[in-house]
């Protein structure tokens, strides 16, 4: 293998595209991080939720003519409601059980259900949202990149920012953080576990909605595309450190960069293996994540 050092503008282009794409993994990872933090649940259905949101955005666009980015105003509140309902209806009882396999399996069942309902309703073919500005590009740092990818990045940044703000400066947010660190102690302080779990779920699904908007405008998608998104989000989560919300976004961006470089320097076929290899290496050597302060979790 000959390693050619590419000219700086190509390097910049690679980095930019990688970072912009990776932010989408990041925003999915933030949702996973919240749910994992309070419930210790690997919510494998997150990716399916993102694709469901993407189909919803597509239906709003082609059915009612609502601009995909404008539909954030609908998708995010709906996501909050759906997340709350999903927790109350499906996970509330399982959350009380010591056996966490049960929650994991409900998530898996939900993933199957959503994937296949989408197939029944919209068919299994690849779908896309094509707007007047889908093909247009903008210039950042002298490098041209797609407008929709940049918007996706902004959505990810804004979503993560809002979540961080919520966790830092509201009382409910602090309760969620306390529960993530030690549910038992938090419960003794009068924090209701069901309430924080439901809030984490609501925000997690709302973020899936936001990610759905970004995915719908950027990539073609199909009902089964969600699972790989869940896996990538898990990688981003591990890179950033479980329980570290801003770290999850950064982890996603790093993953996007790794993928872009591997694709350019090695080959597209190895992208996933190397991404998961990095994931395993981080789990083995730095399980608290790349950015975390020394901090012990159960």
């Amino acid at each position: 293998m000959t390693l050619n050092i590419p000219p700086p503008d190509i390097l910049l282009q690679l980095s930019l595209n990688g970072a912009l794409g990776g932010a989408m993994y990041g925003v999915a990872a933030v949702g996973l991080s919240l749910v994992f933090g309070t419930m210790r649940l690997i919510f494998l259905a997150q990716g399916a939720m993102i694709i469901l949101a993407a189909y919803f955005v597509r239906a709003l666009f082609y059915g009612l003519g609502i601009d995909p980015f404008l539909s954030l105003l609908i998708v995010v509140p709906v996501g909050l409601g759906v997340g709350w309902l999903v927790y109350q209806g499906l996970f509330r009882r399982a959350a009380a059980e010591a056996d966490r396999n049960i929650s994991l399996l409900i998530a898996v069942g939900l993933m199957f259900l959503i994937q296949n309902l989408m197939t029944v309703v919209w068919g299994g073919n690849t779908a896309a949202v094509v707007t007047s500005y889908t093909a247009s590009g903008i210039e950042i740092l002298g490098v041209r990149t797609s407008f929709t990818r940049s918007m996706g990045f902004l959505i990810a940044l804004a979503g993560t920012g809002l979540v961080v703000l919520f966790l830092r400066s509201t009382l409910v947010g602090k309760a969620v953080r306390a529960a993530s660190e030690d549910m038992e102690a938090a419960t003794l302080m009068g924090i209701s576990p069901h309430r924080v779990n439901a809030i984490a779920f609501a925000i997690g699904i709302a973020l899936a909605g936001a990610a759905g908007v970004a995915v719908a405008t950027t990539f073609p998608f199909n009902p089964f595309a969600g699972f790989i998104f869940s896996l990538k989000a898990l990688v981003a989560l591990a890179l950033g450190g479980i329980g570290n919300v801003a770290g999850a976004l950064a982890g996603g961006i790093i993953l996007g960069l790794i993928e872009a470089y591997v694709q350019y320097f090695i080959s597209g076929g190895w992208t996933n293996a190397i991404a998961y290899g990095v994931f395993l290496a981080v789990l083995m050597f730095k399980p608290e994540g790349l950015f975390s302060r020394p901090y012990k979790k159960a």
Partner: protein
Amino acid sequence: MLKQALPQRAWTAIAIVAVIALALVPLLPGAVDSYAFSFLFFVFLYAIMAQGWNLVAGFGGQISLGNHAFFGLGAYTTAILWTGNYLWGSLYDSHPDIYYFDPVTMTLGGLVAAVAAIIIGLPLLSKLRGDYFALGTLGFGEIVKVMFINGGDFTGGAFGVVAPAGTFDTLLPHYLVGLGLMAGVGVAIRLLMRSRYGLALIAVRDDEMAASANGIDVLKVKVSAFAGSAFIAGVAGSLYTYYIFHVGPDSVFDLDWMLLPLMMTVVGGTGTLLGPILGALVMYAVFDLAKIVVPDYHPVISGLTIILAMLFLPKGLMRSFAGRARAA
């Protein structure tokens, strides 16, 4: 739900009678060509996989999300040894069926998986516990899959390896070997769980620190349970190769080979001996029935069934039957 727990001996008797009855099924006229026969073969296959997952997760408490990788490793090992142009082509060309249900090939399928489990298990289990182990094994499964897709001629790339399907004659050997493996794995796990090792495994699951304080080598116990689980999955993969003949990355590394056995175990009863078998029978029957009755919606039904089973039967069928939790 029976309030009165059936004694252990009654369960043993039921299991022995069931195995003997199932072994006699092929003698019935027309049975071998019936649909029920292939249905039972798949129940055995899933029951073996479920039992393997139950060993590391149910008895050992380490949630592995990578058992589909071990299944695939066993399947590929068998297919590559069988067609083995790279290793000893001449033998295959002259005797294409010499590897068909060859016990050595099947054992090697299990061993390759077990070695992979030790290689990945040592670093993962010594540093990580609980959820991180689950995440790590999930990542491992994806890595193995990509490695086989990129394995060039050796693994047949994205298409995979095609074994000589001409050797297939009847489903009878699949059925009997499947039944034998299911029964054998059941007996082996029962003996194991009554040995010192089994007690150590349960001690590690229930309280790692207390187990360690009592002189149990926690890492060794965990890694060996993981390797045992992988061995069982690898042998199951080997058996599947003799059924499917075309071993491809998307078919044998499919996540379903991990998720379905996991689900069957939990529905049947995690950490019970007969739970995985009962779960495999019940869940596979539900899926198969859905496939026949509502073919367009059957994955929807499967998803719903999992959710409903978890909401209303979270402790599993076995424990609901037996009335109380039982370790083995």
